[in-house]
């Protein structure tokens, strides 16, 4: 479980996060949603330590991540898997080398064991046999799946996904969402997904935090979000004409 307590973060005079508190539960898909520029990516970067917070605490299973030494923090990070918006695969490495990279850095597995684990992870994301391809030879959806395979290679306790569906067609987006959900339940991971894709919100949002003006404005799940009377959440969820029509029908 990851707990965020009263976290604030500013860049110069601009306060991006303002006293944000949230709980991200284990074995659930926790979403951070919100319009662009509201601070959700900054919150995610604070959670993984890419930005230092100005105030507040970030607790990984009770341990304060902000107060840890870089060595202890590095140890925690080996338990984190992250799927970046642009996949962030290593260009110079093949699919197999990308997936086995964390294993080669942090495990004492033999080459054969590493290959087994890599093949298992690739099978898990339906990419068996694509070992020797380079990222540039893969489609956007494949790259995201390779990134998921790399993220789960070390059996992480925490999985972060930064806009996993950006740039993907609706069908591939649904596949990626389903994969994230399956992996979370199967391995009992604390998964945090940053998204503004409404499909993802409805499909996989076990626990949703709506960030607005740098604050955790609303908290709920995929059932309560469609019926909330919170104006800002409503404006976000029912932004398109199509969704407005659905709201009218639901009403």
């Amino acid at each position, binding site marked *: 479980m990851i707990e965020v307590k009263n976290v604030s973060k500013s860049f110069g005079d601009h306060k991006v996060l303002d006293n944000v508190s949230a709980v991200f539960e284990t074995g659930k898909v926790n979403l951070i949603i919100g319009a662009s520029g509201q601070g959700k990516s900054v919150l995610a970067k604070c959670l*993984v*330590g*890419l930005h230092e917070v100005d105030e507040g605490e970030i607790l990984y299973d009770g341990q304060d991540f902000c107060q840890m030494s870089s060595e202890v923090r*590095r*140890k*925690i*990070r*080996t338990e*984190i898997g*992250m799927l*970046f*918006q*642009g996949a*962030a*695969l*290593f*260009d110079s490495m093949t699919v197999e080398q990308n997936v086995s*990279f*964390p294993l*080669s*850095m*942090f495990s004492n597995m033999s080459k054969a064991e590493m290959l087994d684990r890599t093949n298992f992870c690739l099978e898990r994301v339906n990419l068996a046999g694509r070992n020797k391809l380079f990222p540039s030879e893969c489609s956007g959806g494949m790259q995201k799946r390779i990134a998921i395979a790399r993220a789960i290679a070390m059996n992480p306790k925490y999985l*972060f996904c930064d806009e996993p569906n950006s740039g993907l067609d609706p069908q591939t987006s649904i596949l990626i969402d389903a994969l994230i959900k399956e992996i979370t339940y199967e391995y009992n991971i604390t998964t945090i997904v940053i998204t503004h894709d409404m499909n993802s919100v409805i499909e996989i949002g076990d626990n949703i935090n709506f960030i607005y003006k740098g604050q955790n404005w609303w908290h709920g799940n995929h059932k309560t979000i469609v019926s909330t009377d919170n104006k800002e959440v409503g404006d976000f969820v029912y932004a398109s004409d199509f969704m407005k029509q659905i709201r009218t029908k639901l009403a």
Partner: protein
Amino acid sequence: MNRIANIGKYCLMLWVVFSKPEKFKIFRKRTFDEIQTIGINSLPIVALMSVFIGGVIALQTASNMDNPILPDYTIGYITRSSTILELSPTIISLILAGKVGSNVASEIGTMRITEQIDALEIMGVNSLSYLVLPKIVAAVIFFPILITFSMTLGIVGGWLSLIISDLSTTETYLIGIRYYFKTGDIVYALTKTIVFGFLIVSISSFYGYYAKGGSLDVGRSSTEAVVSSSVAILIANFLLTQMILL
């Protein structure tokens, strides 16, 4: 003010770079890969430049040798001295600052803007040590080899140009090459080379690692890396000459 802040940031970067590598096996493999990229791939350009620079030095010296008091072997002597003391270590290092420096800065810069460095950090990898240390070790090991190769080819280039232009004989040139030879000159040149190699790779890595923005900014970082490492080479050249030769 910004320059001073950058120097501080550069020193802090070096502090992290020289921490113990995560896995020695991976560090060794990456170092050999970098020797290939930084060193062996630079051999053709170094060979071409050295032969022509050596040739031009010999021709210019020969064209200015109109004083009958000066012996003919002076051409060989001057070609050797200029090549070993300055042209190979400094001029070739400046060329390598362009070739290797821009390559290193753009490679690391692209990794930065495509979040590959963030991915390394989140995995728990010390990205600076993983990316930069093998490059520095490769440069420090292989640059002296490149420069020794360049010295040899520079002297050969001088000999070829004199023979082709019929301005001297092989025997006279060889006398000049051997005349008043000091091993200390080679030590001085190779010491300079090691320092230059370190400066080129570390400064270029610095600009690449702290690149921000998009592809345009990576290009800008790459240019700044080449300019700054060239200036650093010139300053270090002056200081090392003061310290070692005088």
